[in-house]
């Protein structure tokens, strides 16, 4: 085993200093915390807000918290939120305009949040999801100013998974369970008998400078091996898998498969999957006026390919059936995305499986479509 250039150990009792330093440097820490018996992402005031000792049990359409029996701070996987909730807010004002006395009008860009976020506990799949959204919002001719400002200022404190949920399949998507790049600091939590520490690997100058303020030591070979052991354990626990070898061609071939009719029967067209998915990026803009008609505002909000308005053009919606909307979602995610952005739209986080109110599982749907060909 080769020793990474920069692996250090931070003891559990020193980790709270990370929060102090972040806050001191003007960051708003955001990360996992328990609310209404669910591990959500929220602003954190310190280490004590983390879901210590909690894990979750998740499967298609179900989620519940359970005690781990130890004091792990990051001993769980994904919840209903993703970092998209912070980088690509669900509703945001773009600009406002006012009529002027001379019959003209003025337009003023809206001011976005002044907060600089430090994301605590970013998993490998979710870091890939951020990179997928980077392609959408930052690459090419048009950069999204809201996303880009929030993204540039955000600090990524990643956590390598030491366990996987029943809904996880990052190994199939080559997105985890270990982070590869794009983080400022990566932590691997190790609980070994009565030891509790973090292997810390800085990935940027900000990461190094953060580490400099937290007591740490050079990582021993044992610590590095223990961290690799965590990753192996997560790989072995991977609850789902998907064969993506020729998934694009397979989906394109099956435009008219009867399986879509089965989805017509089951899918609620509720849009939960797209809202929970960390890569889904669609939005709509709405113009509002006040009663005087002198003041107007333009707002951007999350939108979903499962709504009729989404594909409404003159004369009606071009995807009038649930069958066609589900197909649009799945085929875009796993196939057309590759053509459009050069990457899959799925990072294997499993959120759409857990948070579908009727437990529709895309890995299962791909398998059934593939099997139907034989």
């Amino acid at each position, binding site marked *: 085993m080769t020793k990474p250039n920069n692996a250090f150990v931070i003891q559990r009792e020193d980790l709270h200093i990370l929060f102090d330093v972040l806050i001191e440097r003007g960051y708003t820490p955001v990360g996992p915390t328990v*609310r*209404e*018996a*669910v591990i*959500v992402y929220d602003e954190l005031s310190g280490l004590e807000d983390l879901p210590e000792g909690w894990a979750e049990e998740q499967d298609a*359409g*179900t*989620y*519940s918290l359970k005690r781990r029996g130890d004091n792990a701070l990051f001993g769980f996987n994904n*919840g*209903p*939120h993703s970092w998209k*909730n912070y980088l690509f807010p*669900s*509703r945001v004002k773009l600009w406002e305009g006012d009529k002027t006395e001379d019959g003209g009008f003025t337009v003023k860009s809206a001011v976005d949040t002044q907060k600089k976020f430090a994301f605590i506990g970013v998993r490998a799949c979710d870091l890939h999801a951020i990179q997928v959204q980077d392609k959408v919002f930052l690459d090419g001719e048009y950069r999204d100013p809201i996303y880009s400002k929030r993204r540039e200022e955000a600090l990524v404190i990643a956590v390598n998974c030491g366990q996987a949920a029943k809904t996880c399949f990052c190994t199939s998507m080559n997105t985890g369970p270990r982070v590869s790049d794009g983080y400022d600091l990566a932590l691997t939590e190790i609980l070994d008998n009565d030891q509790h520490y973090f292997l810390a690997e800085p990935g940027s100058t900000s990461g190094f400078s953060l580490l400099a303020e937290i007591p740490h030591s050079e990582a021993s070979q044992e610590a590095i091996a223990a961290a690799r052991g965590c990753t192996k354990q997560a790989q072995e626990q991977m609850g789902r898998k998907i064969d993506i070898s020729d998934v694009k061609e397979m989906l394109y071939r099956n435009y008219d498969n009867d399986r879509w009719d089965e989805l017509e*029967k*089951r*899918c*609620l*067209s*509720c*849009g*939960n999957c797209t*809202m*929970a998915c960390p890569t889904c990026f669609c939005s709509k803009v*709405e*113009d*509002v*006026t*006040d*009663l*005087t*008609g002198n003041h107007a505002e333009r707002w951007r*909000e*999350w939108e*979903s390919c*499962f*709504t*009729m*308005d989404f594909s409404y053009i003159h004369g009606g919606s071009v995807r009038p059936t*649930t069958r066609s909307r589900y197909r649009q979602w799945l085929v875009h995610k796993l196939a057309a995305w590759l053509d459009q952005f050069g990457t899959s739209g799925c990072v294997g986080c499993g959120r759409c499986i*857990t*948070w579908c*109110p*009727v*437990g529709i599982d895309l890995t299962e749907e791909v398998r059934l479509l593939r099997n139907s060909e034989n």
Partner: protein
Amino acid sequence: MTEKPKLAVWKFASCDGCQLSLLDCEDELLAVADRITIANFMEASSNVIDGPYDLSLVEGSITTPHDRERIRDVRRQSKFLITIGACATAGGIQALRNFTDTRELLSVVYASPEYISTLNTSTPISEHVKIDFELRGCPINKTQLLEVINAFLNKRKPNVSPHSVCIECKKRGTACIMVAHGTACMGPVTQAGCGAICPSYNRGCYGCYGPMEAPNTSSLVKWMRNLGVPEDELLRMFKTYNVGAESFRCAVERVEGEDK
């Protein structure tokens, strides 16, 4: 200077709650009155200016022969007719009568049923006259009501989405209570508009805004049965303010049929 548009508010079989949403606008009411002449609004003032009216807001459902005629007269006097609330858009809770024989009920409830002139059904306004827009909810949401009036005044389409409550629920960051706690929720088949209030208080959606644009009630019912929701509870979920809406009524009939 063109004259201000004239507004009328009409009441049919209903509880008045939706009209009250207009009075509830308090802060904005002055701005409304600035742009519109409130010409006929009995709940607010007995001072009535004769029609025709530019905008009519209609609350309530049609349950009597008299109202069946009256709504035609309202339509004749109105350039724009917008129905507000579950009663006007779906028949309201009183559409439960559609599942029974009303004459039988009359004899149980009234000492002298011969004085009562009523129809056997409670039906939405749209079954009787052409309507220009339906604003859902039991009661309606005052922000949406202002949006509709606003859109009318500024000659634009109202920003009222016909998608599921779930989308609002996710946008406000609520963790789905059906997934996380196994709580039965009407959100996936119900139209948005309320802001997904109930799930944020750990209560399943009650379906106040009626069926969303593509309600798949059979899939939801199947899932709720697996969650262990008893049959009578399932029926009760669909048999509320919007039971008169076609897809909720069909769900009730299906559940009752499957039950037998």
